[in-house]
């Protein structure tokens, strides 16, 4: 216990007396943590935009005009039971007509032609959204297949637009998985790079103290005692660096929130502050671990003599 107290005390003392070197190390730690924070925010933006794009994709089942509503309802219920399905919206033929008129209200000839027919030429349809883009195929397959023998609902389906949209959906599918993979790869590479840089910076600060480590050994200090105070010092670098990073991203996200919300598709300032607890936890933990582990590894070389 007393040893721990002494390690912490001398860690703080070393930190404050190292002056410029300490602040240089903190600067590097801050840069590293800023990279990590940027990656977190970037991932949020990326997954948000992917989510928005995915929401625009759906499969529509068109029914023939005058199809039995009970049959449609039965089909809707069986579709809702599929695990892949997120939601199913039913649009009756009357609603379909109203929507059609609304969409074409400035297109006079079309409306006129519609009036000419007299009766409603549009069938009802179901709008199906899947949880994942990749699941549309299996939903479409389901619509083609078995259930439909049960109630003979096959006969009421006019067409399923999945087959028209298939190539677009497939492309989107590969795009979203590609974007996710690329984002992850970039994040990992950036993190590894910045961790290496931080590690080397802390190693340099300890290199400066290598004579001191030798003297401490000669005076009879145990390895853990020497290492402990350097680890405390590293933890302080991490702690101060993470606080600086969190403060730094306040004005940055405020600016992004004000100027870039439309472009990014989300308000980063809001995102930053509604997730401040998790982000702080990640950044502080990363900073402190980075500092202590770097110090631990860096002292090893000078202690083993």
């Amino acid at each position, binding site marked *: 216990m007393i040893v721990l107290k002494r390690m912490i005390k001398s860690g703080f*003392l*070393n930190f404050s007396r190292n002056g410029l070197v300490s602040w240089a190390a903190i600067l590097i730690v801050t840069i590293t943590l800023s990279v990590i924070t940027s990656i977190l925010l970037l991932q949020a933006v990326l997954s948000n935009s992917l989510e928005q794009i995915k929401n625009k994709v759906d499969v529509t089942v068109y029914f023939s005009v005058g199809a039995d509503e009970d049959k449609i309802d039965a089909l809707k219920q069986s579709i809702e039971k599929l695990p892949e399905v997120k939601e199913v919206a039913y649009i009756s033929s009357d609603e379909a007509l109203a929507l059609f008129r609304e969409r074409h209200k400035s297109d006079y000839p079309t409306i006129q032609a519609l009036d000419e027919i007299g009766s409603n030429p549009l069938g009802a349809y179901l709008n199906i959204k899947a949880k994942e883009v990749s699941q549309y195929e299996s939903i479409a397959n389901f619509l083609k297949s078995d259930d439909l023998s049960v109630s003979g609902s096959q006969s009421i389906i006019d067409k399923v637009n999945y087959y028209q949209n298939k190539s677009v959906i497939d492309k989107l599918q590969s795009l979203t998985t590609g974007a996710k993979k690329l984002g992850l790869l970039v994040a990992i590479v950036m993190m590894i790079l910045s961790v290496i840089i931080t590690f080397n910076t802390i190693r340099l600060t300890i290199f400066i103290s290598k*004579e001191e480590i030798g003297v*401490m050994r000669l*005076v*009879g*200090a145990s390895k853990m005692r020497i290492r402990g105070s350097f680890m405390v010092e590293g933890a302080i670098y991490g702690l101060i660096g993470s606080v600086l990073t969190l403060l730094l991203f306040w004005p940055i996200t405020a600016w992004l929130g004000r100027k870039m919300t439309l472009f990014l598709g989300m308000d980063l300032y809001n995102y930053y502050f509604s997730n401040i607890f998790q982000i702080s936890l990640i950044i502080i933990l990363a900073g402190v671990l980075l500092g202590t582990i770097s110090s631990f590894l860096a002292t090893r070389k000078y202690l083993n003599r």
Partner: protein
Amino acid sequence: MIYFNNVTKIYNKEDLALDDINLTVTAGEFVSVVGHSGAGKTTLIKMILAEERPTEGTIFFESQNVHKLGSDDLTRLRRRIGVVFQDFKLLPNKTSYENIAFAMEAVGKTNEEIATDVPHVLELVDLSNKTFHFPHQLSGGEKQRLAIARAIINQPELIIADEPTGNLDPINTHDIIQILKKINDLGTTIILTTHNRGVVESIASRVLTMEGGKIIRDDKGGKYVI
């Protein structure tokens, strides 16, 4: 207390730093090791601290073969030996007080012991008025007195002083030697290396003369002869 058995150290081929050394130092002795630079004095001392390994032969500190000790036992051994260097080897980021306190913390002394012993030993080496100075604010003689204070604070059985007066003027040299003699009178064994003739003659005890890695003279009388 210390036994060298046929110790040879070879850094490069055909360049023997130590050549078949046999040596016994008994408790309470004040041994001066003299010789030119490169004669092997520092290597001899590093062997006792297990900072260097012998190429051949063994070194015992009492019953322990110092080169067979594990890291923990070695730490324990070093706590029984106080070391003073020509270049002081003080901790530059710590004040006089903290330099000595660190040596006490290292061996696990309590805060109370530290609070009472440190001022006492600083007074012994006449540094009471420099308690909160950093090493770079001290003169050479003061640094060496601080180093000695650190070396004796844990009451070691042996003090090794490697050219402790090498960087000092005659007056400071005299002071340092007087302090070491006082410590020796209190029963601590001392091994000192030097090439200062005056130092050897003022101590007037056992002198080992080294040349080319060999001990060429072992005088009980305290003369510097080369």
